[in-house]
């Protein structure tokens, strides 16, 4: 028998626990040239804000050892155009759509979530309180338990959709923040977003990114992400979507063992647009070979004496 990959993530029924991480995947349709999007566990769209945003000036990306640094800065067309132009297309796929929501103020988060309440075809919200690439709001909300809890409480009031809160690793104690968003009503947490970083071009003496500081992602950050998923998993009861540097089946399995119920793949899509599907297949094979019947059997099963 084929192992059962299906999961129930905070009320979202998924045929497998593999999704894309918000951002590098856009709204998914560019990847439809390479993969069958309906095979994914869920599609997570790039951060949406209330109004259209231009994003940061270029250069917006540079490469580092085993990773990349980006400062895209939430460029998006705003919630109304997302609903009109992108959502109808995404709805054609038989796959849960999770909308990643960002904002500069609590009112903005609330307004976007309220707007999404009235549209058909959305399975959940991922609240991005952790984007390092915007001056106002963004990571600020995610960097203290008080503000994180406040934004989650306010959003919880206006939405009945499953609410997943995406946490930033740029804090001293991520466990504390995870606990506070759980108490404030979150149905799940995603971790981690990118780590703040900086690169300097030694020829020109200038920062490589126009925004000076950017967010580090890719294989370089995986051990940090695993550590955080493991710590948070000990402390909360809501499910975790683990992400940060996943580029192979083995990487994905590490996240499940650390305590993630689902995983998301960001940067690796840039290198291999078929990576999500390859990891789904690889997970199935791994479970089969090891004699497990379902994915949940390995969740949190790291052996610690």
């Amino acid at each position, binding site marked *: 028998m084929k192992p059962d990959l299906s999961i129930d993530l905070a009320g979202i029924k998924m045929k497998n626990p593999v999704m894309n991480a918000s951002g590098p995947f*856009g709204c998914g349709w560019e990847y439809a040239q390479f993969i069958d999007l309906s095979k994914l566990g869920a599609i997570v769209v790039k951060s949406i804000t209330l109004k259209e945003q231009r994003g940061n000036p270029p250069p917006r990306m540079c490469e580092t050892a085993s990773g990349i640094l980006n400062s895209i800065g939430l460029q998006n067309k705003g919630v109304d155009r997302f609903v009109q132009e992108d959502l109808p297309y995404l709805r054609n796929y038989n796959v849960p759509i999770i909308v990643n929501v960002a904002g500069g103020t609590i009112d903005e988060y609330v307004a976007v979530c309220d707007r999404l309440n009235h549209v058909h075809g959305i399975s959940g919200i991922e609240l991005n309180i952790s984007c390092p690439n915007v001056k106002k709001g963004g990571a600020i909300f995610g960097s203290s338990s008080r503000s994180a809890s406040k934004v989650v409480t306010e959003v919880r009031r206006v939405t009945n959709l499953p609410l997943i809160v995406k946490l930033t690793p740029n804090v001293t104690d991520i466990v504390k923040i995870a606990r506070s968003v759980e108490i404030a009503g979150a149905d799940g947490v995603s971790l981690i977003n990118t780590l703040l970083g900086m690169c300097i071009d030694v020829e020109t003496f200038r920062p490589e990114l126009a925004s000076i500081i950017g967010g580090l992602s890719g294989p370089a950050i995986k051990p940090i992400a695993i550590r955080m998923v493991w710590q948070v998993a000990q402390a909360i009861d809501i499910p975790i979507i683990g992400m940060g540097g996943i580029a192979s089946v083995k990487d994905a399995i590490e996240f499940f063992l650390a305590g993630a119920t689902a995983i998301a793949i960001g940067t690796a899509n840039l290198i291999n647009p078929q990576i999500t599907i390859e990891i789904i297949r690889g997970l199935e094979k791994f479970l089969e070979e090891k004699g497990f019947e379902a994915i949940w059997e390995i969740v949190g099963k790291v052996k610690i004496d």
Partner: protein
Amino acid sequence: MFQVKAHVLLKEQIAPGIYTLRFFCREIASRAKPGQFIHVKCGENRNFILRRPFSIHRILGPDTFEILFKVVGKGTSCLAQLHPHEILDIIGPMGNGFTIDDGLKSTILVAGGMGIAPLVSLIEEIDLQRIRLYILQGAATRERLLYFMYLKRIARKIFLATEDGSIGHKGLVTDLLHVAIKECKPDCIYACGPEEMLKEVAEISSEFEIPAQVSMERRMGCGIGACLSCVCETRDGYKRVCVDGPVFDATEIVW
């Protein structure tokens, strides 16, 4: 667009640190247009993870095409060590490519340094269509004027510039553009090279009210339009060089 494991047929060094790589790959060769590019995984190396973009340099037939590259860093060093029969993971053809308008009679191509790479496939197309072709080629030194003999043969006239003055005009290739436009009366200008050069081309062509197509370069992530890392500023806001370009109308770019 296709993600393909393509066979390397041939690697040739054509100048110090400059190589051509020939691929056997029907999916891409049979569809590629001048000005498009491929996104290459240059090797399994955790020190650099992103793909690298290279222009379609020559289309040799329905199964084969070439890229032309200069060794500047990690990825291109890996490519320089490839051997025939090795296999590379490539994606393409990507981007919009140059447009050749119907009724085009005369054109100037401006190539700066490695900017010659995409222009060679364009030249072959222009030659097929019997459009009058003039070339302005610039490089640091005489040795870096790639394909100079071939270009000289195929163009009605070639204008040369080298930074060290070892051949042709001593200085920048754009120094020659005023004179060339007056002499050749082009309907359209195509340019590829450093951004400073493209900017000059844009200014001069707009002075003469001649349309110009420029091929832009940006650091790329996905190369397929999803990640928004390769944007450049245009009159309609940020556009993605990988899918909205790399070829833009020169008047569109905010320099």
